């Protein structure tokens, strides 16, 4: 009986650790001056939105058992393309955003092709692709930053808080809406379930008749398109974009990766949720508003990441100890859990 209680609480922590992380940050916020102000929450979540788009893409690929390292450069590329098309060609924002997103779709298709048809490991394929993107950006801009110039109208819309009582910017609300849509697709559609299946066990997925190449390519397309859309919106939201974005501070790629792991998405694929990543990234965005020094931010995020990894390692060790001894242990545990409720 005593053991059962421990198992339940351990399971609860594992499944909800991103929520616990966010709750911890919100509680700490109660003791921080000026934390709970409309401006602070709106600015912190707005500034953290770009990384949420990156986390969204990274999580989808990771659930499918792959890594997409192009996410950061993809978003920067899209931001530069969007600002460049608007500033130089005078195209409307909607067209610029659409073209930038389509560029993301194209990059996703290429990544998918490299991984599925040429059988290049996703780590290597996307690592190469990120340098292709970086080189393209240098050719396009000559190393210079691009800005929205005097055209602040749409930027102001993205920065505004459209719902009076909600401390969230339009940009953050759009970001959240897309995360929810992807979550619904992954959870409630056949394609979504196939993503989990190929990530969990590719062989089983193949035996089940799933066309893994198509699903994998689609996962990369979702990832790149999300990052491109997020990057384009971020370029307008912040008013500028530069090639070296994120290279000198805490890398957005690393933050997205960290949040994906903290959220509970399995590194080997097959398990995870974009909502878990979203919650972790919101927590990290708010954490930055609490711990103002970059060094402390890095330290706290690292401590939480280490905590999660140690926890996972111990959990895996305990799970492996039971392998082979009682084959139906998992079913039994679920049955017991059901009874306890």
């Amino acid at each position, binding site marked *: 009986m005593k053991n059962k209680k421990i198992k339940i609480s351990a399971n609860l922590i594992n499944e909800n650790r991103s929520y616990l992380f966010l709750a911890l940050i919100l509680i700490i916020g*109660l003791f921080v001056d000026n934390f709970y102000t409309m401006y*602070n929450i709106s600015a912190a979540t707005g500034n953290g939105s770009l990384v949420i788009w990156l986390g969204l893409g990274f999580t989808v690929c990771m659930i499918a058992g792959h890594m997409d390292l192009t996410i950061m450069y993809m978003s920067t590329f899209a931001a530069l393309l969007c600002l460049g098309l608007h500033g130089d060609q005078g195209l409307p924002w909607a067209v610029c955003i659409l073209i930038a997103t389509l560029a993301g779709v194209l990059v996703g298709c290429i990544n998918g092709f490299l991984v599925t048809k040429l059988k290049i490991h996703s780590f290597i394929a996307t690592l190469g692709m990120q340098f292709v993107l970086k080189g393209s950006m240098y050719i396009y801009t000559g190393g210079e930053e691009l800005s929205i110039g005097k055209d602040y109208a749409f930027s102001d819309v993205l920065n505004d808080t459209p719902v009076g009582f909600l401390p*969230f910017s339009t940009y953050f609300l759009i970001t959240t809406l897309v995360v929810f849509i992807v979550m619904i697709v992954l959870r409630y559609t056949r394609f979504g379930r196939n993503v989990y299946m190929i990530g969990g066990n590719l062989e089983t997925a193949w035996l089940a008749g799933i066309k893994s190449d198509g699903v994998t390519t689609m996962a990369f397309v979702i990832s790149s398109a999300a990052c491109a859309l997020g990057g384009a919106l971020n370029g307008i939201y912040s008013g500028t974009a530069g090639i070296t974005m994120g290279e*000198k*501070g805490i890398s957005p790629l690393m933050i997205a990766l960290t949040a994906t792991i903290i959220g509970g998405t399995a590194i080997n694929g097959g398990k995870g949720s974009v909502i878990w990543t979203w919650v972790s990234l919101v927590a990290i965005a708010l954490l930055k508003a609490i711990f103002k020094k970059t060094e402390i931010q890095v330290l706290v995020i690292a401590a939480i990441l280490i905590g999660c990894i140690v926890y996972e390692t111990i959990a895996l060790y305990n799970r492996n100890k039971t392998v082979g001894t009682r084959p139906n242990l998992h079913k039994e545990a679920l049955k017991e859990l059901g009874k306890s409720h």
Partner: protein
Amino acid sequence: MFKKYLAVMLAGTMLVSTLCLTGCGNSGSDSKDDKKASSEDSSSGGDNLAESKELLQKAIDDIQTTDNHQMMAEGTTFDVPEAEGDAEALEKLDDSDMNKWHYYEYLDWDSEADSRFPESPADGQKGKHVILIVHGAHAWTTCYQEAFEEACEAVGMTCDVYDPNWDQSTQDGYIDQAINEQPDAIVVIPVSADHAGQQFKKITKAGIPAFCSNTLPEADAMNNILAYTGPNDWYQMRNLASKLGEELGGKGGVAYITHNVGTSPYYARTFGPMSTLAEEYPDIKSLDVQSPGFEASAVKQVVSDWITKYGKDLNAIVLADDSDQAIGATEACKAAGREDILIVAAGMSKQGAELIQSGELKYASYQSCQADAGLAVRTVSEYFNGEDIERVSYIGTDIIGADNVEEYLPCQW
């Protein structure tokens, strides 16, 4: 499962909204009210304005830079010449054409498009709180920061310093945090000239006096900046180029090592001297422009390649930095036995001074880091005292060579 997510999200959102609307934990505004009250008390009792002016004057008279110059000296201003076309037309000109850089060189803003700046309280700087947001960690920045804190303390202001470590998005975050803290003024050294417009727009929109220091912002940003203080990078680099042209006897080939691409020193320290030489000495050719960064080894490699490629046609090198870049360039020249190549740089650091003394660096421009900070604090103080402040004011400059380097020792950083 979806219902669970939705319930958790809605509950969390409502909780955060409620906390925000009720201002839970929002003691900052209280402290600001307390500060205002204490400021009013002190002004009614001991005349805070008179005391502030006295403190400011004393600081101006007494505080010296480490190289024994006045730290809070009055800034200089320049008349902006007429531009020979709009920005779009000038952009099409050749890089070596002075006119091309008009809108980079002069903060020629349209006053009619100015945002509504907060009015000066005119109750003295004493007791005011300022937030300084620098661009990133560097020996120069440490020197600036310490001088800023020293000057603030001397005039009775308190200050907090945020360092985004050269990261644009981190600096954006700090701008938001600073606005959220509602200080009496915010001073920013922008990471990027192009992005400064949006940053200062936010600060001014929040009703906080915004000051820009050191890094030249894009001209349009001035519509949201109460005052800019800093070095006149273009002017000092043009002077340096004139001196170099004179040394070269009006002919030869010059190559350029730049600052970080896209920053205001990138344009000023590359195209300032290039266009000046083209204008004053048409027989001097620009051979190449490279941006290897600030590592001595990378610069050494670039200069070695130049020596191989251009041989005797390479007669001078203009550097954006007189520390690591100068070390790399002088080492490459020494290794190739080309001590005849004249090297000039923007300065001035300890390494630069040593290289000038040893004769390896011919000239460096003098840009006082501490006077830069001192002028910023002086301008902010004058604003709080209700005085008329210049929208743009520059620190003094000089050209340092072997004959006058002693006047600027010990170096500030």
